[in-house]
């Protein structure tokens, strides 16, 4: 019995991953702590992120057509497996809530100072819910169009802002102390790249599982390159202010001014944020409801979509008490907090599976 009928192609998987990684990272500039060396931090983080991806894709390839929950119950047995699955599902749930939170904060600060956060949260959540209800296939299809648009917008922004770029702002290279650099690169590895571990709930529905790893890598690398471009752009345009602004990309878009006509286009960035966030939230959301449905072995994940959505909104509303804490968590706590979910669980599961020669019956039947 499968809860998800749909199948997605590897190409769609890559695109979906790109959208997922753009998710919040277009708002919270990754590696901002490294100042004008952010792009180096991202580049290093990209490599580490690829390692993380290597682990979980290895796991997914080992059990073709199985989501992490099914894998866990195979490897650890029903009880322990479900327990670990619940942990992982919590991570997904929390991830969704965090992204939601970022969004509501961004919107409140930049566009809707007077609108209560709860409203924007609920609306975004509703849109995500209706897409999650339609299944992963529909998400993947949307991703192709929206991600293409986003990439175009990023390129467009970069070209328009080119006259305001001063590449010497990037000098001297590698000014930050190495420890700080490594920390920031690890931070970028866990957010946004490492978050792709959420796709352990999705990789089961790829039509050619043997190719899925290269697809995941493609997605991560492309997204990483775009992020590097964005980081370079922001540093080159904003100079040292890039490390000070809360949302550098947004401010960079504000700098655009072509002959007093093609100006004030920052809203394009804002729309990007909304759409890409939609993907990150939706994938986390999807993973959560699907995982729960599998843990409690329901016949469909549809009934619990709305309740979980509500809980996510509530967590997003209450999980941090102010923006400073949000960024503090993003810079300090998150890189540690995610290690168990992004690295430990997949790695240990994989090793155990290898040791116990699982799956005997071969997890081929998708």
């Amino acid at each position, binding site marked *: 019995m499968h809860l998800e009928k749909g199948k997605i192609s590897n190409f769609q998987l890559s695109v979906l991953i790109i959208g997922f990684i753009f998710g919040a990272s277009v708002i919270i500039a990754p590696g901002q702590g490294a100042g004008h060396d952010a792009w180096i931090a991202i580049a290093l983080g990209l490599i580490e992120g690829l390692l993380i991806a290597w682990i979980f894709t290895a796991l997914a390839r080992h059990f073709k057509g199985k989501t992490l929950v099914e894998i866990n119950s195979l490897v650890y047995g029903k009880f322990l497996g479900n327990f670990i699955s619940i942990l992982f599902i919590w991570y997904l749930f929390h991830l969704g809530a965090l992204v939601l939170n970022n969004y509501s904060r961004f919107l409140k600060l930049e566009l809707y100072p007077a609108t209560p956060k709860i409203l924007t949260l609920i609306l975004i959540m509703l849109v995500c819910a209706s897409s999650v209800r339609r299944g992963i296939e529909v998400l993947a299809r949307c991703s192709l169009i929206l991600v293409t648009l986003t990439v175009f917008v990023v390129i467009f922004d970069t070209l328009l802002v080119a006259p305001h770029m001063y590449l010497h702002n990037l000098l001297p290279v590698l000014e930050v102390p190495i420890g700080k650099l490594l920390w920031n690169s690890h931070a970028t590895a866990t957010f946004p790249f490492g978050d792709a571990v959420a796709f352990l709930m999705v990789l089961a529905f790829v039509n050619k599982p043997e190719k899925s790893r290269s697809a995941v890598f493609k997605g991560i690398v492309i997204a990483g390159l775009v992020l590097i471009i964005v980081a370079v752009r922001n540093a080159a345009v904003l100079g040292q202010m890039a490390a000070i602004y809360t949302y550098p990309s947004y401010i960079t878009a504000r700098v655009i001014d072509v002959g007093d006509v093609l100006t004030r286009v920052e809203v394009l960035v804002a729309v990007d944020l909304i759409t890409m966030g939609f993907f990150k939230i939706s994938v986390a959301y999807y993973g959560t409801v699907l995982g729960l449905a599998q843990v409690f072995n329901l*016949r469909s994940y549809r009934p619990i979509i*709305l*309740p*979980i959505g509500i809980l996510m909104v509530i967590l997003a509303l209450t999980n941090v008490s102010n923006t400073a804490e949000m960024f503090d968590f993003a810079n300090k706590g998150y890189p540690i907090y995610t290690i168990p979910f992004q690295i430990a669980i997949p790695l240990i599961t994989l090793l155990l599976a290898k040791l116990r020669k699982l799956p005997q019956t071969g997890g081929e039947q998708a």
Partner: protein
Amino acid sequence: MSALVLIGFGAIALIQIPGLVRKQWWRELICFTVFWSLGLVLAVILSMGIKLPPLTTIINETITGILKI
């Protein structure tokens, strides 16, 4: 505010429960009810203006506290 919350939750229940009952998906129904009521409780608490503990902050503080970052 609480009235709105109740309306919203009532609407969700109205959307979901009849179908589940018709299909006799009791397990799903239980699952739904659990999450739904959990959400309801929390929402009512919030709407009454009581602050819930900020989970992420707690996580952050524990981690940073342990690792002395």
